[in-house]
């Protein structure tokens, strides 16, 4: 029967077990050393969930494939190749010591699979090596660790084929139809066939020991080189359980803790996450700051943090520059694309927190926005209106007077105070009134949700304001909160503590879609224009609302043209994370980068659903082409334009 003898032709084969024991011990020690990086952070409970591992594993592959199919496929070759070979080794061990089943046809299939996947792995690694060292397309440092991560497994594979080839050249009993199942080694066998028996044995023995050494070195590499992502990525995925996009860490404020000054101020979960970065560089693809020439690259930040040796050293200024720190719009595009599920955003915000809360350090223009928030409850420094001025002549019910209503319309600071955005609030009111919705607004009782302030780093101001708002919201009874600002939406829904009373927070797009569904709005689909919809980050990528705004456009009579970067692949307008208040002298402007992308569709109208997107995109359009006839509108404005007289 066709099969293979364990340790064929090798004396002292049992040394394998000794060496594997030693290797495991060393590997454990190396991982222990690695874990010191994570363990000097603040303790946070790490809970494991096998199910999420499964989900995230497939997510990871998907993300690798999404933006660079070639690399995705090559990585799958390597990944699945090695997994298969590993399983193969285990099966071989079971076969030798417990129950012999690898014989005959089973053995043939076994060998076909292993040889084929081994070849794929070899092709994969070779291609990745060429990509990095010859074509110079890969990011991340080209140091010894990176080199070994490629070289060791590659050499292990090559020597493995050499072992097999030289064995087959000597022991023809195994070679029943070997040409069939051993095709990768065919050239090796053919080349060796002419050698003498003793030469072949020497080659076999040498390559066997070298192969074994290399294999164990490769295993050790899991603790020391870039290959450690094999351990770290799943570990990181485990502890992401329960993390939703855009989620920030709650920090209890005290006299002593104000966010992250040094590495030891991160939590251990965050440090695992930082360590899991392999410089895959998917994050840069859609990063609005990076793509507008700013110095911020999420990958670079993670790399820099990984290299910090002094856990107590201050990070901002030395490791992370202020330019990088303040450039992040918190859009989450990096988080969404990362194959190891590293999340740069919450690290950046923790760094901002220390700067703002402990040092009062922030870009000068942000200070006026935050001071305005402190004094007036809204960030629009130069505005001199009250939150009710926009309602003049519209008969908008105020909660404190109406008392009994179903829907609370959370207007937001921008929607109540900024000229352009007031038009959207007015459009929504008209729609709500047309549909006879029993709604009210908080009016003067409303304060900023402080979504922006939180992401700018002022956690203290956020917590104070949140408390105020939550107690105001508790005073009234209603079923639904709707808002036209994705930032307010995200914070009200995910960060405030109000949904436990059965209150649901809805995006205005979802609510309007529902009204249309129920036939409550008298709309005629008369728009007849080409419309490109720009997905706001906090509705789209972070909270998964894609279809309703598009359906609203269609129902208004628009012909939708999808932008290349849409849905979760949308490109941020540059308004989030406080960046709307930035001076923006470096590089080009994010909003212009995005506007150019949208203008490529040549639509008559750019629709969106966020007051900041509207502000930024209109600015951009004004800068790029003041004579442009392209309009930018909220979907509510589109809809109200098609409202018919009853």
């Amino acid at each position, binding site marked *: 029967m066709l099969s293979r003898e364990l340790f064929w032709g090798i004396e002292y084969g049992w040394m394998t077990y000794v060496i594997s024991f030693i290797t495991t011990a060393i590997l454990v020690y190396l991982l222990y050393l690695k874990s010191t990086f994570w363990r000097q952070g603040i303790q946070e409970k790490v809970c494991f969930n096998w199910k999420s591992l499964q989900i995230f594993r497939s997510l990871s592959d998907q993300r690798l494939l999404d933006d660079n199919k070639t690399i995705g496929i090559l990585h799958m070759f390597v990944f699945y190749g090695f997994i298969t070979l590993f399983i193969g080794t285990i099966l071989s061990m079971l076969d030798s010591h417990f129950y012999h089943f690898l014989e005959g046809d089973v053995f043939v299939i076994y060998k076909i699979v292993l040889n084929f996947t081994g070849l794929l792995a070899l092709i994969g690694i070779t291609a990745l090596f060429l990509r990095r060292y010859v074509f110079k397309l890969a990011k991340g440092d080209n140091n010894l660790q990176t080199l070994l991560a490629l070289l060791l497994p590659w050499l292990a594979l090559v020597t493995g084929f050499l072992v097999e080839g030289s064995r087959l050249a000597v022991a023809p009993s195994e070679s029943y139809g070997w040409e069939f199942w051993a095709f990768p080694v065919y050239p090796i066998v053919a080349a060796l066939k002419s050698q003498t028996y003793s030469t072949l044995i020497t080659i076999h023995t040498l390559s066997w020991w070298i192969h074994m050494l290399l294999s164990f070195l490769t295993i050790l590499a899991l603790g020391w080189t870039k290959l450690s992502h094999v351990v770290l990525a799943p570990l990181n995925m485990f502890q992401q359980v329960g993390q939703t996009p855009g989620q920030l860490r709650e920090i209890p*404020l*005290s*006299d002593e803790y*104000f966010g992250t000054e040094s590495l030891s101020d991160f939590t251990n979960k965050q440090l695992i996450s930082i360590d899991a970065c392999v410089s895959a560089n998917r994050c840069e693809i859609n990063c609005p700051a990076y793509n507008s020439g700013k110095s911020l690259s999420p990958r670079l930040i993670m790399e820099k943090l990984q290299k910090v040796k002094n856990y107590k050293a201050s990070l901002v200024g030395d490791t992370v520059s202020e330019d990088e720190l303040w450039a992040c719009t918190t859009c989450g595009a990096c988080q969404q694309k990362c194959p190891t599920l590293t999340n740069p955003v919450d690290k950046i915000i923790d760094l901002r927190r220390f700067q*703002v*809360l*402990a*040092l*009062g*350090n*922030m870009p*000068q223009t942000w*200070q006026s926005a*935050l*001071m305005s928030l402190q*004094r*007036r409850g809204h960030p629009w420094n130069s*505005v*001199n209106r*009250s939150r009710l001025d926009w309602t003049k002549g519209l008969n908008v019910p105020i909660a404190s007077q109406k008392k009994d209503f179903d829907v609370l319309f959370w207007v937001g600071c921008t929607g109540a105070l900024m000229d352009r955005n007031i038009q959207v609030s007015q459009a929504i009111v008209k729609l709500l009134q047309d549909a006879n919705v029993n709604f009210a607004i908080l009016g*003067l009782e409303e304060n900023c949700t402080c979504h922006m302030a939180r992401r700018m780093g*002022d*956690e*203290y*101001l956020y917590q104070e304001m949140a408390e105020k708002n939550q107690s105001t919201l508790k005073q009234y009874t209603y079923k639904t909160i709707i808002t036209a600002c994705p930032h307010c939406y995200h914070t009200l829904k995910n960060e405030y503590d109000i949904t436990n009373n059965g209150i649901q927070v809805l995006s205005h797009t979802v609510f309007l879609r529902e009204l249309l569904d129920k036939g409550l709005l008298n709309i005629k689909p008369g728009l007849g224009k080409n419309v490109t919809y720009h997905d706001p980050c906090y509705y789209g990528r972070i909270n998964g609302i894609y279809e309703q705004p598009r359906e609203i456009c269609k129902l208004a009579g628009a012909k939708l043209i999808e932008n290349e970067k849409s849905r979760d692949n949308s490109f941020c307008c540059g308004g989030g994370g406080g960046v709307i208040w930035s001076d923006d002298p470096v590089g080009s402007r994010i909003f212009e980068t995005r506007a150019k992308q949208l203008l490529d569709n040549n639509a008559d109208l750019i629709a969106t659903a966020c007051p900041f997107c509207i502000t930024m995109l209109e600015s951009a359009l004004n800068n790029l082409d003041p004579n442009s006839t392209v309009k930018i509108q909220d979907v509510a404005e589109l809809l109200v334009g098609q409202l018919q007289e009853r």
Partner: protein
Amino acid sequence: MKIAVLLKQTFDTEATISLDSEGQINRQGVNLIINPYDEFALEEALCLKENYGGEVTVISAGAPEAQTALSQALAMGADKAVLVTDDALAKSDEQAYALLLSKHLSDLGFDLILAGWRAIDDGSAQVALRVAERLGIPHINVVTKLEINDGKAVATRETEGGSEIVEVSLPAVITAQKGLNEPRYPSARGIMQAKKKPLQKLSLADIGLSADQVTPKVEIISYFMPPTRSVGKIIPGEMPEAARELCRLLREEAKIL
């Protein structure tokens, strides 16, 4: 260096002002802030403390609400705060405030006294200078740059049509103008530390003054709103014509040109 900063709490610059039924200024719902010019003075004091060491005391006289302004000053980095509050101060004028402030200041002794050059509510621009006169120390007014060397203050002072560089010996009163510095943000850490810093509330008796010593010399007898300007003319027409028409109106109707 012992530095004192005179601070006033005023209405927010964006506040809408109205008169109530009794013709008094409505204080309902108005945000109260540190007088912006006093913030420049405070920031300067904090910078000097960082450079030369010492202690910064903020002093305010007025309504009890001024406590929040003083807390904010402590959060920005001042070491001590004093609020002189008393019912008798309700109608006080600039010279009464100057009296009580200088009394308290002379009791404590300071090397440098900083204040905003005016308050945005009444725009008097008097109190700091009166304090200097009372204490018999020199002053430099409306300062956009300040250096302290060897017991002397050298300041750039704004004048009409230019500026001058003036030197005085300490102790002195310096009043701050916009452009002197950029006031820092009161950080959360500062706010928490401020809770532990001393904030003294004193009545007139506490500083050794009686109510009749602070009777005002100047009184406000009534308030009135400025006349709302009537909506003017939009000059219609195409460009050269409209410009011509404007000139004509300015000459013949408004009689200006």
